[in-house]
């Protein structure tokens, strides 16, 4: 892997993690530009199937980040998130997709430093994993034209 720069999409909940990301900006902590945030109101909004869509779209890694348990602005959204993704990661692995590419993390509005560090760490990890090969968009393999050799 000569020089590979991964694309990482981060689903951030508006109240904790997105605010935390903002804070790491206002306090000028640095992290790699590989991270692209997508704001949702609550991590509970994120449908696991969206992760696959992100992969197909070209993402090499995905972050889902919400409030710490108990702190959810909507009181319970992150508990559902937790449940869904514990299961979903295991399922991805079963299908041969490296679960390390899907990271769930709790980041509060006050953890600007932590957010930056997490993103740093995560980007390195995905960089080492290399590009995601399970999803190669728009390849067309017509039935009957399977090349056997």
């Amino acid at each position, binding site marked *: 892997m000569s020089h590979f720069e991964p694309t990482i999409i981060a689903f951030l909940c508006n109240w904790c993690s997105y605010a935390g990301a903002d804070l790491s900006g206002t306090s000028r902590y640095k992290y790699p530009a590989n991270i692209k945030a997508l704001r949702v109101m609550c991590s509970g909004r994120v449908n696991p199937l969206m992760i696959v869509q992100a992969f*197909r*779209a*070209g993402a090499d890694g995905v972050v889902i980040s919400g409030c710490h348990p108990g702190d959810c602005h909507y009181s319970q959204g992150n508990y559902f998130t937790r449940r869904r993704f514990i299961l979903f990661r295991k399922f991805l692995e079963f299908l041969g997709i490296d679960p390390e590419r899907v990271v769930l993390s709790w980041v509060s509005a006050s953890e600007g430093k932590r957010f930056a560090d997490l993103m740093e760490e995560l980007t390195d990890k995905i960089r080492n994993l290399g590009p995601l090969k399970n999803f190669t*968009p*728009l390849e*067309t*393999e*017509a*039935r*009957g*034209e*399977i*090349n*056997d*050799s």
Partner: protein
Amino acid sequence: MEKFILPKEKLIDFLKALESYDLFAPVRKEEVTVFAQVNKIDGTTFDFKNQPLTPKGIMFPQTESLFTFDTKTYAMNDSAMTPKKQRVMFGLRPCDARSFLILDPVFKQDYPDPYYLEKRTATILIGINCSEPFTNCFCTSVGGSPASQEGLDLLFIELPNSYFVEVISPQGKTIVEEASSLLSSASPEEEKIKDEIVQAVKEKIKRNIETKHLPEKIEKIFENPIWKDLAFKCIGCGICTYTCPTCYCFDIQDEVLKGGGKRQRIWDSCMFKEYTLHASGHNPRPTRAERLRNRIYHKFKQNIDKYGVAGCVGCGRCISFCPVNEDLIENLMKIKKL
């Protein structure tokens, strides 16, 4: 018409002799046998038993990109799977060969379809007779036969330790010439054995139905409640159409990603609710009854009216694969009884 003999052990050499062509043949792929391009030719590659899946995908791929486009440059370029060179399709069953004769007019008449036609014209069809008919084979009931030559350029008929090769078309002849060294001309005795074998296989086909007067019959019973009876156990999956060698319905979609995309042509199935669903939400074939009726109608009435031949080669796949025992023959019987 010339007839030759190819010793079984020479088969591989025969195929090797055709290496100037792209060779397509039935190969084992995990659980099932599919028609696929073959690059390395050896004894282990092939599976000449009856193929559960239709080879129509070679001419009419389940997914074919007609062209690609680029939303940045607005460039469009043809990406259809145009054959690079002449193709040989080896080892297809006579019924499947016939299916191409049924597909041809559909893609030729009215609006000639270059994507199908260029593959079709670039392909020489070499069949092997059907020696082990499936449980539900009924080709003989729809004008076919286990050793039918229709649609083929060459037909191999399996004898105990050789193949009886019938040359059917000029293309077939050229092939034979390229492999002439391996072939010897057939003797009348061998021809006799061949005829006996073919006859024997014919008798192996146990399912049959007299289809002569079906069209008139079907026409009369369009509104008959029998369609509901026939359809109640249908679960509306696409198996019968996707495994059918003569079904040709497709859907066209632009699939865009990463600032570019492809115009894709994908098999579709008249058994799906979405197939006839209008944008308005109205569905002219609202229930499985109308859909099942449509399929039988199309195969045994409309196709005959338009192209003079039933849209069915009697391969029996729709019967064998149906998960809930929708039995085409049984259904046709019921219709006839009315």
